[in-house]
């Protein structure tokens, strides 16, 4: 009885409350610490998972037979980089993929430049062929004129393509050795057009044409068919 009273004296109600609160906090703290650990473990697992996925994706990007386009690969790489995984192996793979993509970009550029060059060449060739066809059409027109007057007006039209009536016309009769050429006696465009009018036949092909800065012909080389 005395002990009970003494204990009650010693531990008053407020004190008891404080003790209980302390015990509660102490017990509750232990529980929070355990949850944090679990979360950390979970995050670590997720990170490891992300790293593994990133590695797999990067290795895939390094494959030569990867069917994705350059832009798709670049977008994938940027996505992985944005994850900032800070894993040395991932960073090494990122460097490799960047180098590979840069190499591919340069190759694509090279291909594009080559394609543009070929296209320009093709267009120039077509344009040149159109010019040659036009020159040839004048020769045929003169040779096939039904009357002398008509032939003369066609000659006047044809002459407008040339820098002067005295533009040299060279006619190749044969080639030999290292692209050496035998010519017929050189003539002038005016004489040659009149020759076509007289002979009524054009059976040469254009081998070369030289133009001045104004696009007028200053020399023409024909070759016998």
């Amino acid at each position, binding site marked *: 009885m005395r002990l009970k009273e003494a204990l009650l004296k010693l531990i008053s109600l407020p004190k008891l409350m404080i003790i209980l609160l302390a015990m509660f906090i102490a017990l509750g703290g232990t529980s929070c610490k355990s949850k944090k650990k679990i979360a950390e473990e979970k995050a670590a697992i997720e990170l490891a998972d992300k790293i593994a996925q990133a590695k797999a994706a990067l290795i895939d990007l390094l494959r030569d037979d990867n069917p994705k386009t350059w832009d798709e690969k670049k977008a994938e790489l940027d996505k992985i980089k944005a994850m900032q995984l800070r894993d040395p192996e991932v960073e090494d793979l990122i460097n490799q993929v960047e180098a590979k993509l840069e190499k591919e970009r340069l190759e694509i550029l090279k291909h594009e430049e080559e394609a543009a060059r070929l296209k320009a060449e093709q267009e120039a060739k077509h344009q040149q062929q159109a010019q040659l066809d036009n020159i040839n059409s004048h020769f045929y027109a003169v040779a096939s004129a039904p009357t*002398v007057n008509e032939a003369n007006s066609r000659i006047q039209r044809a002459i407008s393509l040339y820098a002067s009536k005295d533009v*040299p016309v*060279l006619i190749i*009769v*044969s080639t*030999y050795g290292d692209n*050496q*050429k*035998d*010519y*017929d*006696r*050189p003539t002038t465009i005016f*004489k040659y057009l*009149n*020759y076509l009018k*007289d*002979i*009524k036949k054009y059976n040469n092909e254009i081998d070369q044409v*030289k133009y001045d800065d104004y696009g007028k012909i*200053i*020399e023409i080389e024909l070759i*016998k068919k």
Partner: protein
Amino acid sequence: MIFSSVGLFAQDEISPERKQAIDSLAMEKVKDLSKYISIIGSKETSFSEANRVIDRTLELFAPNSQIGVSSLYVKDIKYYSVRKYLNRLMALNYDQVNIKWYNIQYISDLEPQPDGTYVGVITVYQRFEGRSGDDLAYVDTTKKDITVYVKRKETQIGGRTIGFWDVMLGDIRVAETSK
């Protein structure tokens, strides 16, 4: 254009392909002459056109070349300078003149001479028809032999040297005349 001869001598053999090209070139010049003679002789050709073609025809011939003229009614063959022959041809006193050359072929192949010139003979048959009104006033067929000279020459065009074969026609001799 200024042309200069090139020393291509007989020992400088040319390939059969090049020779073939020269043969064809010379033959073409004779065929061109055939066209020119037909144009000059035609009464449908204007005076100015005929004179222009005469000038072109003269360019085909070597200097001092002559052309023989025969007739069924005259025994002798007369030889005229090319210009005189062409002027006479243009002035023939017919209303209509038709001249046609055919069977044009080499009777003596082009052969290199010691100076490098190739010389050959091409024969042609000429059918001449002169009409007065609707009447065929004169007609004959003449076999003609044309001497052909081909020489290698050079000239400068646009700052570069061009080597060319200069074909020159020489005398045209009448071999036979028939009706």
